[in-house]
C-alpha cells in the first residue's frame, strides 16, 4: 500500500485528470475548430508543465514509488485506485507530456476527414494521454489492466475515424491484436490474484503485495503466469512475430497518432517487461530469458531488413520501430543495470527520435501528398531545412554518438554484452543496418536530382501547378514557423540528451537497481568497491 505523500498527491491526480477535463472541454468546444485547437494546446501545455514539476519533485534516491495516492475501488477484490510513479514511469509520463503538445502542434493545420471535427480528434488525443499516463502510473494491477485495455479504445477511434484508406482494417487489426493479448494477460492477472489470495488470506491487487507473493511461487507456476503477461506486452512492444499489426496501424494512422502509437502506446509493452515481468516472475524471467533474447535479436535484424524493403514511408517507420524495440527487449532481458537503464532511456529516446522522424516524414508527406518513397527524390533542393530535420531525426534513429539514442543503444549493448555476448554481437549488426535504412530513406527522398511524381509529376492530381521557378509543385515549400517550432524542442533534446544524459540516467538508475534487486539479479560487471553492492543486496527498495 502506498501512503500518500504530501506533495505528490495532488500532482499525480492533476496529471491524470487534467487531460480528461481537457478532452471534455475540447469536445464541448468542437463546434469552433479554432477555439477547440487552442484549448487542446493549452491543456497539453499545462500538462507538460505539470510533468516537469513532477520530475523536479521526484527524489531519485527516495522511495521506490513516490507521489502516490490511493482510493478504495472494489473492496471485495481489494482493488484500489492507486497511482504512484517510479523513475521509469516518471520519464515516460514526461515524454507523454512532451509529445502531446507537439503532436497537437504538428496536426494544427491538417485536414480531418469529412464529417469529423478537429476538436474530436484532439479530444481523443487528450483522452489517450490521460489513459496512458494512468497505465504508467498505476500501482494496482487490476487498475493497470483496466487502463491497459481501455486505452485501446481512443486509439481505435483515432485510427479508424481519422486514418487512411485502409483504416478500418488497420483499426480492427490493432484492436484485436492488443485485445487478445490483453485477455491472455487477464488470465495471468487473475492467476496472480488467486495465488496471492491463497497465500495472504486476503484479496489484493496491490502491485507490491502481489509481487512479494508471486515472486516466490514455484518456477512452473511463474512460467505460466509470465507467459500470459508476456504475450500482451510482446504484442504491444511489438516483438516479432506479433508485430504485423504495427505496420498497418502506423501506415493508416494520421501522423500525430502514429507518433503516439509508436512513441507512447508501444512503450507500455516494454514498460510492462520491467515493471511486471521481472519483479513478479524472477524465476520465469531467468528461465525464459533466452526466448525473449532470441525474439529481441530477431526483431532487430528482421525489423531492420524489412525497413529497407519497404516502399511506403509510414510502413518503413513501423519496421524501424520494431528493430528498436528489439534493442529495448534485449537490454531488459540481458539482466544488467547498464542494459536496463539503457532500455529505459531507449524508450525515452526512441519516443523523441522516432517521434521526430515520424513528424518529419509527415511533413514530407503533407507536401508531396504521397507516402510512397518512389514518388520523391532530390527534395533537399527545395526544402533544405526539412531535409536537415529528416537527417537529424534519422541520425538519432541510427544512434549516432552525440544524439540521444546513442546513449541508450550504447548502454543496452555494452550492458548486454557480458551476459549475452552472442545476442549482442548479432544485435550490433543492427547498427549497420540502421545506417543502411536511414541513409537509404534520406537518399531516396532528399538526394539526387529532383524527381518523383509527388514533387514534379502527377501524384497531386491533374490540377497541380508546377512552379517554373523551382521546377516543382507550388505546394513544396520549406518548413514554416509552426513546423519549426514543433521540431525545435525535439532537436534540442536529441542533441542535449546526447551530450548530457545525466538527468535521465540519474532518475532511472535507482528504479532499475530496485528492479534488479527484486528480480534477484546481480550486475555481471561490478564496480571496484563491491561493498556498496553487497549492501544494496540486503534489501530492495
Amino acid at each position, binding site marked *: 500500500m502506498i501512503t500518500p505523500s504530501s506533495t505528490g498527491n495532488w500532482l499525480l491526480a492533476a496529471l491524470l485528470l487534467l487531460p480528461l477535463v481537457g478532452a471534455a472541454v475540447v469536445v464541448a468546444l468542437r463546434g469552433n475548430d479554432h477555439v477547440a485547437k487552442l484549448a487542446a494546446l493549452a491543456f497539453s501545455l499545462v500538462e507538460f508543465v505539470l510533468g516537469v514539476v513532477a520530475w523536479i519533485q521526484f527524489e531519485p534516491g527516495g522511495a521506490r514509488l513516490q507521489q502516490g495516492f490511493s482510493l478504495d475501488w472494489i473492496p471485495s477484490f481489494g482493488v484500489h485506485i492507486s497511482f504512484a510513479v517510479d523513475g521509469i514511469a516518471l520519464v515516460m509520463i514526461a515524454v507523454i507530456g512532451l509529445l502531446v503538445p507537439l503532436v497537437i502542434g504538428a496536426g494544427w493545420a491538417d485536414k480531418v476527414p469529412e464529417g469529423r471535427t478537429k476538436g474530436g480528434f484532439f479530444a481523443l488525443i487528450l483522452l489517450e494521454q490521460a489513459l496512458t499516463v494512468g497505465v504508467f502510473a498505476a500501482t494496482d494491477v487490476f487498475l493497470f489492466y483496466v487502463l491497459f485495455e481501455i486505452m485501446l479504445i481512443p486509439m481505435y477511434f483515432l485510427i479508424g475515424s481519422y486514418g487512411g484508406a485502409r483504416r478500418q482494417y488497420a483499426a480492427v487489426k490493432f484492436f484485436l491484436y492488443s485485445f487478445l493479448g490483453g485477455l491472455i494477460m487477464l488470465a495471468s492477472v487473475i492467476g496472480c490474484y488467486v495465488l496471492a489470495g491463497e497465500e495472504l488470506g486476503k484479496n489484493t491487487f496491490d502491485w507490491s503485495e502481489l509481487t512479494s507473493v508471486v515472486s516466490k511461487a514455484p518456477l512452473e507456476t511463474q512460467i505460466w503466469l509470465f507467459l500470459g503477461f508476456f504475450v500482451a506486452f510482446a504484442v504491444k512492444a511489438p516483438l516479432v512475430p506479433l508485430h504485423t499489426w504495427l505496420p498497418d496501424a502506423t501506415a493508416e494512422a494520421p501522423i500525430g497518432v502514429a507518433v503516439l502509437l509508436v512513441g507512447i502506446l508501444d512503450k507500455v509493452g516494454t514498460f510492462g517487461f520491467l515493471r511486471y515481468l521481472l519483479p513478479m516472475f524472477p524465476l520465469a524471467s531467468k528461465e525464459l530469458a533466452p526466448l525473449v533474447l532470441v525474439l529481441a535479436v530477431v526483431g532487430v535484424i528482421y525489423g531492420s531488413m524489412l525497413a529497407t524493403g519497404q516502399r511506403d514511408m509510414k510502413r518503413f517507420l513501423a519496421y524501424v520501430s520494431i528493430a528498436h524495440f528489439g534493442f529495448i527487449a534485449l537490454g531488459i532481458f540481458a539482466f544488467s543495470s547498464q542494459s536496463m537503464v539503457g532500455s529505459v532511456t531507449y524508450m525515452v529516446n526512441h519516443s523523441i527520435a522516432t517521434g521526430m522522424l515520424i513528424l518529419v516524414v509527415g511533413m514530407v508527406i503533407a507536401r508531396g501528398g504521397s507516402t510512397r518513397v518512389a514518388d520523391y527524390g532530390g527534395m533537399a533542393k527545395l526544402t533544405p531545412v526539412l531535409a536537415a530535420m529528416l537527417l537529424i531525426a534519422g541520425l538519432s534513429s541510427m544512434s549516432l*554518438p552525440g544524439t540521444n539514442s546513442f546513449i541508450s543503444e550504447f548502454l543496452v549493448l555494452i550492458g548486454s554484452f557480458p551476459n549475452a555476448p552472442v545476442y*549482442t554481437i548479432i544485435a550490433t549488426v543492427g547498427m549497420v543496418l540502421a545506417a543502411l535504412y536511414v541513409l537509404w530513406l534520406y537518399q531516396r527522398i532528399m538526394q539526387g536530382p529532383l524527381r518523383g511524381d509527388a514533387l514534379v509529376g502527377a501524384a497531386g492530381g491533374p490540377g497541380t501547378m508546377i512552379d517554373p521557378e523551382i521546377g516543382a509543385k507550388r505546394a513544396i515549400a520549406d518548413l514554416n514557423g509552426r513546423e519549426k517550432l514543433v521540431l525545435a524542442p525535439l532537436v534540442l533534446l536529441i542533441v542535449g540528451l546526447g551530450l548530457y544524459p545525466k538527468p535521465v540516467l540519474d532518475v532511472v538508475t535507482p528504479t532499475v537497481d530496485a528492479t534488479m534487486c527484486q528480480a534477484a539479479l546481480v550486475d555481471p560487471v561490478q564496480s571496484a568497491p563491491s561493498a556498496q553492492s553487497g549492501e544494496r543486496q540486503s534489501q530492495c527498495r
Partner: protein
Amino acid sequence: MTGTINLAGTLADGAQQATGVANLAWLLLVLPAAGAAVLLIGGRRTDKWGHLLGSATVIGAFVYGLVLFFDTTALGADDRTRDLHLFDWISVNSLSVDLGLRLDPLSLTFVLLITGVGSLIHIYSIGYMSDDRDRRRFFAYLNLFVSAMLLLVLGNSFVTLYFGWEGVGLASYLLIGWYQGKDFAATAAKKAFLMNRVGDVGLALAIFLMFKHMGSTSYDVVFAEIGNQSTGVVVAIGILLLLGACGKSGQFPLQAWLPDAMAGPTPVSALIHAATMVTAGVYLIARSSPLYSLAQAEDARFVVMIIGAITLLIGCVIGCAYDDFKKVLAYSTVSQIGYMILAVGLGPAGYALGILHLLTHGFFKAGLFLGAGSVMHGMNDEGDIRRLGGLAKKMPITFITWTLGYLALIGFPFLSGYFSKDAIISAAFSAGGGRGWVFGGIALFGAGLTAFYMTRLLILVFLGKPRWEKLKSEDGRAYHPHESGPTMTIPMIILSIGSVAAGAILSGMLPGWLEPSVGELAEVHGPLSHTAVSILTVGISAIGAAIAFAVFGRREQPVTRPQRVSWPVRAARADLYGNHLNEALFARPGVWLTRFLVFVDNRGVDGVVNGIAAGLGGSSGRLRRLQTGFVRSYALSMLGGSILVIAALLMVRFA
C-alpha cells in the same frame, strides 16, 4: 565518474590532472563546433561572413593548439600526459564514462596536424568554393569535422574516441555527399558511411569486451589492466580495434569506399580523405600501443601487419590503372596508410614511424590533393587525366608545389617521404626472419609501384602535349586552364614547404616526443642496414619512375582509355574486383534476403494471422449453413447433442 581518475592517478604511468592553460583544452572542441552551430542555425543570414567565421574558429583552435604544445614541451617528459575531466557523460553503476580529454604528445601532435592542415584547407576552400551558393554550409560541415576529429584524438576513453570516430564519419558523409543533387555523390556518401559503420561495429565490440573484462573504457584503466587479461581477450580486442581502423582508414577489406569518396569537393578529399580522418586508424592503433605492445598481442600485431601489407599493395596496383586524377591519389592514400598500418603493426619498433609517416603524408598528400583541386578548378572540374596534359606552363605554381609533393611521396632523397617511408621499410625488414623479408619486400615493391603511378600522373597531367585543347567539358564549355587565386595557392605553397622539410625536421624529434604516449622507439636490426634499405628504396623508386617515363613520357597518349589491355590492368581498373566481391557477397544477397523477408512478413507472418481470421470467417460461413431454418434439423441437433452428453456422462462414469 571521478573514481576512474583517482584510480588512474595512483598508477605509475597514469595521467595527471590538467592545469593552467591546459584547462581550457575544451576550447579546441568548442571553437569549431560553435562555428558550425552558428553557421547551421544562422542559415542564409550568415552567408556573407560564414566562411570567415569557419576559418577563424579553426585558426583559433590551431593557435591554441600551438600554445598548448609549447605549454606541454615546457614540462618534463613524465608530466606531459595530462587529463582534463569535463563532465560525467554516461554513468550507470559500475559503468562510468566521462567526457574527458587526454592531452599528451600523441594527441597534441594530431591536434596540430588537424588544426594546421585544417586551417590551410579552410583558407583554400574560401577560393575553391567561392562559386557555391551554399559555401557557408560547407564551412559548417568542415568545422563539424574538425571538432569531431579533435574529439577523436583528444578523448581520454575509448567511448569518447568512438564519439569522435562516428562524428567524423558523419562529417565525411555530409561532405562526400556535398553535391547531393548527383546520384553518384549521394551513393558514395552512403557507401562511405556504411563501410565505416562496419568498422565501427568492430570498435564498439572492442569497447564492450573492455567493459566486460576490465570494467572500464578509459585509457587509464584499460591500459593498466590489459596486461592481466588472457591472450584470447587481448587478441580479440586487438583485432576488433583493427577492424575499426580498417573501416576508417580504408584498409583491406573495407577500402572500397575511399576512392568513391572523391565525389566530394577536393578540399574535403585533401583534409578528410588524405591528411586526417583516414589516418584515424593509425592513431587508434598507436593509441592502443600498450595493448599491441604486449607479448600476448603477438597474433594481433601480425594481423595488423598483414592487413597493412595487403592494403599497400592493393592501393599501389589499382593506383597504376586509374585515369581519374583524384582516385589515383585516393588509392595512393590507401596504400600509404597501408604503410602506416604496417609500421604500427610492428609494435614498439614502428609506432613512432607510423605517426611520422602519417604527419609527412599529411603534408604532401594534402598538397597533392590541393594541387589536383587547383587543376580541376582551372579545368572545368575535369578529373580525367587522359583529357589533361601539358598544364605545367598554364599553372606554374600548382605545378611546382605539386611536383614537390610528388617527390616527397615517392621518397626523393632528403624530402619528407624519404625519411618516413624508408624508415618503415627498413623496420619491416627487421620484423624478423622470413616474415621480415616478406613484409620488407612488399614494402619495397610498393615504393617502386608508387613511383610508377605517381610519375604517370605527373606526366599525364602536367607534362607532355595538351590533350584538352580540342575537347569540351561535360557541360559543353571549352577549357581555359588558369592559375588559381592566392587563397588557393598560398596553402599549397605552405604545404609544399612542409612536404620538403617536415621529414627532416620531424624524424629526429618525433620518436622522443612521442615516447610518453607510445613508448620508446625500439632499436631494431634487420638483415639489411638502414643505409642499404635507403639505397634500395631510392633505386627501386627511380626504376619505377623511369618505367613510367618510358611508357607514358615518350609517346602521345590517347584521350580515351585503351580498352584492349592485359588482365592485370583490367583487374586493377575493376578495383581488383573488391566491389564485385562486396556486391556478390553482401549487397545482392542482402537485397534478395530483404525481398524474401518482405514476402515472408506479408504472406507468412501476417498471412498466418490473416489466414486464421479468414479461416474463422470461412468456417463461420460454412457452419452457419447448418442453421438450415428447418425445425426438424434443429431437433435433430438437439437430440444428437443430448445423446452425446448422456453418452459422455455414462462413459465418464463407467469407462
